[in-house]
């Protein structure tokens, strides 16, 4: 029996107003205006509008999220309308207030352009009505998303996010597609750096169909993948490697540069992952290893007056890594008996010490102080010079492959188990015979290695290094990408690096709000998906094992019986 329950006004008002305040906040700090410059679907939707509208959609969804099945759809939709209407109120208040008094004295970002965006380019009176209407529509949309059957909702949401994502990255897509399909195709699909409406609909339908197909065939494909023979597997890896090798020449200089940055952060992420993800040692000063790698490379290869020896890149590379490892080793000694917060603060201090030393007048005769080190030559093999981002890419790619190989070997070894056991419970790990002192020192030392490698490549990539390149933000970035990707997971590091390094780079609008978005993203991740975007898979040892035993014969069974 369907029933129409009482409307819980307080709850609806709360969700509505909360969403409204969120929308108000992003408007007042200027995000909406800046984001509105990026069009997603030409003439239909801008990123700013997406930001504004997502609040009432979410509110509508939440308003009916906990309702039981018995309520009628019409009743739920009504709730969505009410929530949406309330979510418009704070923005309406802002519009009216901005008309009455000059808010810019206090809120510099409340510009006429912002108000114009909020009232959809119409006057105040019409605009307020439109705001109410749009609130109601988006609130209802949130409810509709909730009402859809689970499978349909999943398909629709996947389709929507791909379409919006494609719209957001239109400039990138244009750059990649232009050399492949020619300018005619670009003009056909894109307009003003955004998808045309029909193109976005096509993308949506395509993705939806693909996702629907995938959801039907997923298991089948997965088992097929798992049953590939080694030759096929090797062939697959070969194709993957080939794509990675030609990638910079498809993407062009600018995108290769972005890719290089992502690669450097992947390298650092892989290193820090050993300390934080595996061994559970919260290291907030990871930038120190990066700085040491860079400075060693700079000092020993630079042709400037600061340069010592003007050695070859390939000779200094291992020295840089060793220097960073030594620093990691030395850092480990004083923090051996520290845990949790104390460890974090101390490592934070270590990172700052290195940066301040690099900046200090005291060391400036040796390492250049604030002027940094100039004239660091590019690496070279024979006559091939790693000149630009497209060439340096190969160096970084090689480094990443090496780091992934080493990390995964360590991950699946006795050493990795020791680290994990120490992360889980240090005392018990010691009681099981693990020398936790040795394990910690090893974790810090090995963790520093790929930071040093990243630093060394960074130095010769830029040709110059300055102390201010090695600030706390790098440590925080690396840590964030591990958390977002999934603690202790190698694919997680790669995914996290793309999400936190490539995306802000591609969407210049984000730059100003980078930290705000990081904070918001981390909070959302902690609430919705604390295990990360790509959590480390639990290794399947026993399945493999029991299969073998069955093949060997039934000898295992009687043992099991007598064991009870």
């Amino acid at each position, binding site marked *: 029996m369907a029933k129409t329950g009482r409307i819980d006004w307080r709850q609806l008002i709360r969700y509505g107003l909360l969403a409204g305040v969120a929308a108000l906040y992003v408007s007042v700090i200027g995000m909406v205006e800046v984001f509105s410059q990026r069009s997603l679907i030409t003439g239909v939707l801008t990123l700013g509008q997406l930001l504004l509208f997502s609040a009432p959609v979410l509110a509508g969804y939440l308003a009916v999220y906990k309702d039981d099945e018995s309520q009628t759809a019409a009743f739920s939709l009504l709730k969505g309308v009410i929530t949406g209407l309330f979510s418009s109120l704070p923005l309406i208040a802002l519009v009216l207030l901005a008309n009455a008094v000059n808010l810019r004295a206090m809120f510099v970002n409340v510009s006429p352009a912002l108000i114009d965006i909020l009232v959809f380019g119409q006057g105040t009176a019409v605009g307020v009505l439109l705001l109410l209407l749009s609130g109601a529509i988006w609130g209802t949309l949130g409810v509709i998303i909730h009402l859809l059957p689970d499978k349909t909702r999943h398909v629709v949401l996947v389709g929507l996010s791909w379409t919006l994502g494609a719209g957001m990255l239109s400039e990138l897509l244009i750059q990649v597609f232009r050399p492949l399909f020619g300018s005619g195709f670009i003009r056909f699909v894109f307009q003003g750096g955004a998808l045309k409406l029909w193109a976005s609909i096509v993308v949506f339908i395509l993705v939806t169909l693909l996702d629907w197909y995938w959801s039907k065939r997923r298991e089948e494909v997965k088992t097929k993948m798992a049953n590939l023979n080694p030759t096929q597997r090797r062939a697959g890896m070969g194709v993957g490697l080939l794509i990675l090798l030609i990638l910079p020449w498809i993407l062009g200089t600018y995108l290769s540069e972005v890719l290089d940055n992502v690669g450097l952060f992947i390298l650092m992420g892989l290193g820090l992952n050993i300390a934080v993800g595996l061994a559970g040692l919260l290291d907030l000063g990871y930038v120190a290893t990066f700085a040491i790698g860079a400075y060693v490379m700079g000092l020993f290869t630079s042709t400037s007056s600061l340069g010592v020896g003007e050695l070859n890149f390939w000779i200094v590379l291992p020295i840089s890594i060793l220097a960073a490892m030594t620093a990691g080793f030395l850092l480990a000694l004083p923090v051996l008996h520290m845990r949790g917060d104390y460890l974090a603060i101390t490592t934070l201090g270590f990172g700052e010490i290195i940066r301040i030393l690099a900046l200090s007048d005291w060391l400036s005769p040796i390492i250049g102080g604030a002027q940094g080190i100039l004239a660091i030559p590019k690496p070279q093999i024979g006559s091939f010079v790693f000149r630009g981002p497209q060439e340096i890419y190969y160096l970084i790619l090689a480094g990443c492959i090496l780091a992934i190989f*080493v990390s995964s070997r360590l991950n699946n*070894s006795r*050493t990795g188990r020791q680290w994990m056991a120490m992360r889980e419970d240090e005392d018990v790990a010691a009681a099981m015979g693990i020398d936790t002192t040795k394990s910690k020192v090893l974790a810090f030392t090995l963790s520093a290695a790929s930071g040093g490698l990243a630093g060394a490549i960074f130095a010769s990539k830029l040709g110059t290094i300055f102390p201010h390149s090695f600030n706390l933000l790098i440590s925080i970035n690396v840590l964030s990408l591990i958390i977002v990707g999934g603690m202790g997971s190698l694919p997680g590091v790669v995914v996290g690096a793309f999400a936190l390094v490539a995306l802000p780079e591609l969407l210049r609008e984000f730059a100003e709000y980078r930290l705000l978005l990081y904070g918001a993203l981390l909070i959302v991740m902690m609430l919705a998906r604390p295990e990360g975007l790509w959590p480390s898979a*639990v290794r399947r*040892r026993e*399945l493999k*094992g029991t299969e073998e035993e069955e093949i060997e014969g039934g000898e295992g069974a009687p*043992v099991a019986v007598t064991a009870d």
Partner: protein
Amino acid sequence: MAEDLLVARKVTKRFGGLVAVRELDFTIPKGSIVSIIGPNGAGKTTFFNCITGFYSIDEGDLIFDGHRLNGRPSYQIARYGISRTFQNIRLFENMTVIENIMVGQEPRLTSSWIGAILGTPHTRAEEEQAEKKAREMLQFVGLQGKGDWLAKNLPYGEQRRLEIARALASDPKLLLLDEPTAGMNPRETAETTRFIQRLRDELGITILLIEHDMRVVMGISERVTVLDYGEKIAEGTPAEIQTNPRVIEAYLGRGAAASANIEVSA
């Protein structure tokens, strides 16, 4: 009389002004099952922690199998052949059951991180061996088929068994069990008791047991030591302990000592 595997001489442990263990003399003969009982706060677990190096003792000597344990780090003591479980289960929760047992084998493993990176034959062989042994251990404690579970997802009773499996994985000479039947129902308790007996009889492991359940203690111990306020107040066979007036007094209070009996169904 077998030789003593563990000898404690006048062991004292203080926390500030509180004496948790006072001049305790204690021996465990090789191949025996010895129990320590006593009211809450009597210093039983503290004594365990002293043996396993969690606490360093203030006075006295701890000798195990020819090694002096005083001031030795936990991991070293584990490598001498002492293994333990915990009163409140302490598994590596976010690791799989198999991985937990493989960590338990630590004292016997020799491969290094360099070997792991290079994938040397020694490392591979050792890992394979360790995995195989972990699976055998899984069967021994009746957890076969659950090797890929995360330890935290096991039900309570199985977590207890996993903890014992992890402790056994190092092939210990001495196994310290801290209230292994806590929180179990009578049937599970009886099963665990039989299991402990089997560990000694079949694997020849010497066992030191802390237990509150008198049925367990009286049923399988060859000798029982009673602690109260950190001091040994009685020692003897289960039968002797049951009739010892000081023990009854410590458990039930002075007034009850005259009339009460500890109910035992051993």
